[in-house]
C-alpha cells in the first residue's frame, strides 16, 4: 500500500502533504524561533529593537528572584505530579481491575468532560468554595472546625493543579493498567504473591511506560499553568508562567519574558526526554 520512499511525489501527494508543512513552519516553527531571536533584542523607550546582546540573559539569570521562582515552580510542579499520581492510582486501579468494561468506558467518558469546560470558570468556582466563608469552611463549621485559610497558599495552588491534571492522569493510568495481561496477575497471585507485592512488583513494572507518560503530562501541565498559582495561590511566590505574564503585560519587556520562556522549554524538554528514556528502557522488573 505505502509507496516507495524514493519515489518522487506527484501533484496529488503534494496537495495533501504540503499544507501542514507551510502552516506549521509559518505559524509554529516561526514564532518559536523568533522568540529565541527576540531574547537577544533590546528594548529602548518601550520599543523593541533588533540586536544581538546577551543583556537580557545576563539580567535574568543573575537575579535571585528568577532562580527563586525557577526552583519554586519546579518544586511545586513536582509536588503536583506526585500528588496527582498517588491520588489517581487507587481510582485507576479500581477502574482497571475491579470495574466492568462498560463502567470503565463510562468513567473515561465522564473524565473527558472536564477538558471541555472552562478551566477558568472551574478555578473561579474553587476560589469561591475555598474562601474564608466559602462552602468548605461552612461545612467544617458545622462540625466545629476551622475556618481554615486555604486560598493564597500552596494548598490552593495544588487544588487548582489537581483540577487541571487529575482527570487526564486517571484516564492515562486506567487505560495503561487495563491493557495489562490479566493472566500475569493471576499467575503472581497463584504463586503466593501478596496483593500489595503484586501491585509493586507486577502491575507497576508492567505499566511503567504509561505511568511515566502520565507523570510527564502532569508535570508539563502544572509547570506551564498560570491560572492556579495566580488565583488560588495568590502568587506570593510567582511561578515562571506568572513571571512571563508580568514581564510581558506590564513592563513590555518581551525579550526578558522570552528568556524565561526558553528556560521553561529547555527544562521541560530535558525532563520529558529523561522520562521517555526511562519509560522505554528495559526494566529489570518486567520480564
Amino acid at each position, binding site marked *: *500500500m505505502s*509507496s516507495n*520512499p524514493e519515489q518522487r511525489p506527484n501533484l496529488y*501527494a503534494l*496537495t*495533501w*502533504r504540503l*499544507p*501542514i*508543512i507551510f*502552516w*506549521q*513552519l509559518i*505559524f*509554529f*516553527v*516561526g*514564532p518559536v524561533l*523568533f*522568540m529565541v531571536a*527576540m531574547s537577544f533584542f533590546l528594548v529602548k523607550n518601550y520599543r523593541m529593537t533588533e540586536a544581538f546582546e546577551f543583556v537580557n540573559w545576563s539580567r535574568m539569570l543573575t537575579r535571585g528572584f528568577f532562580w527563586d521562582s525557577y526552583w519554586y515552580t519546579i518544586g511545586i510542579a513536582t509536588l503536583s505530579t506526585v500528588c496527582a499520581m498517588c491520588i*489517581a492510582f487507587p*481510582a485507576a*486501579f*479500581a477502574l482497571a481491575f*475491579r*470495574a466492568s468494561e462498560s463502567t470503565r468506558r463510562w468513567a473515561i467518558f465522564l473524565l473527558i*468532560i*472536564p477538558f*471541555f*469546560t*472552562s*478551566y*477558568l*470558570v472551574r*478555578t*473561579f*468556582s*474553587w476560589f469561591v*468554595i475555598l474562601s474564608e*466563608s*466559602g*462552602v468548605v469552611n*461552612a*461545612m467544617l463549621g458545622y462540625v466545629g472546625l476551622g475556618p481554615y485559610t486555604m486560598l493564597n497558599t500552596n494548598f490552593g495552588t495544588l487544588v487548582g493543579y*489537581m*483540577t487541571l491534571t*487529575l*482527570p487526564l492522569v*486517571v484516564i492515562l493510568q486506567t487505560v495503561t493498567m487495563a491493557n495489562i495481561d490479566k493472566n500475569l496477575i493471576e499467575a503472581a497471585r497463584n504463586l503466593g504473591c501478596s496483593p500489595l507485592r503484586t501491585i509493586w512488583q507486577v502491575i507497576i513494572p508492567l505499566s511503567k511506560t504509561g505511568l511515566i507518560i502520565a507523570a510527564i503530562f502532569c508535570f*508539563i501541565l502544572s509547570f*506551564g499553568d498560570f491560572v492556579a498559582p495566580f488565583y488560588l495561590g495568590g502568587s506570593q511566590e510567582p511561578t515562571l*508562567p506568572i513571571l*512571563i505574564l508580568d514581564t*510581558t503585560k506590564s513592563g513590555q519587556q*518581551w525579550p526578558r519574558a*522570552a528568556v524565561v*520562556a526558553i528556560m*521553561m522549554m529547555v527544562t*521541560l524538554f530535558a525532563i520529558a526526554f529523561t522520562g521517555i528514556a526511562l519509560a522505554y528502557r528495559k526494566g529489570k522488573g518486567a520480564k
Partner: protein
Amino acid sequence: MKQSRSLNFILGIYVVLIFAFVFAPIIFSMIFSFNSQRFPTIPLGEFSTEWYAKVLADPDIWKAARNSLIVSCSTAVIATFLGFCTAYSDFRYNFRFKGPYLALILLPPTIPLIIMALAMLAWLAMLAWLSKIGMSGQLYSIIIAHSVLTAPFAMAVIRLRLNQMDPDLESAAWNLGGSEWQTMRHVIIPFCKPAIFSSLFLTAAVSFDEFAVSWFVSGLNSTLPVVVLEIVQGNIDPQVNAIGTFVFLTSMTLVVLAQLFFASRQIKGIQS
C-alpha cells in the same frame, strides 16, 4: 473473598470521591449561577436569575460571544482541513523525514500555552510590522493560533478513522478506472465524513474554551473566555458562573455531537 468485597467497596467510594472532586467546581458553578448571594456559601441564598439577566444585558459580552463563535467556527474548518491532509498523507505515503513531519503537527500541545502565547504575540506583531497590516489584535490572529493548537486533535480523530479503512478499497477504486482525485472525492472523503464532523465539533469546542493564547493576541477583540478572565481579575462576580454555565452547555453540545458522529461511524464500520 469477604476481604476482597470490602476492599471493592472502599475502592468504589474512593472512585466516587475522585469524581466528586473533579465535578465539584462544575456543579457548584452552576448552582451559584442561580444563587442570589454575591459571595455564595452554605446555606444557599434564594433562587435568582439576576446574573443571567445581567449577562444578557451586557453588550460587551454579546460582542465577545459573537467573536468566540467566529473564532471557533473558523478554527474548526482550518484545523480539520490541515488535520485531514496530514492524516491522509500519513496513512497513504511513506516518505523521508516522516518523523519530523509528524512531529511538526503533534508537538504544539506539549508546549505550555503561555509560551505559545508569548511566541505568537511577538511573531504576529513582527509580521504586522513587516507587512504594515494590523495583524495583532485582530480576530484572525486568534484563529491562526488556535488552528496550530487544535490541528493535532483533528489529525488524531481522522487518522483513527482511516485506520478502519480497508487499504485495498483505494486500489480497488483505481482499478475500476477512477483517478486519484476521483477516488478521494467518492471513496475516501465519504468514508471519513463522520470523523470529519467529529473533528469539526471537537476542535470548535477546544477553541471555544481556550483563553491564554486568545488573551495575549486578542487586543481589543476579546473572546468569551478572555472576558471571563478580565472579570475574574477584578473581583468576585457571579456573572462568571452564568457565562461559565452557558459556555459549558455550548461545549458539551459540541462534544456530544462529536461523540454521536463517532458512534455512528462505529456502527457503519461494523456494517461495511
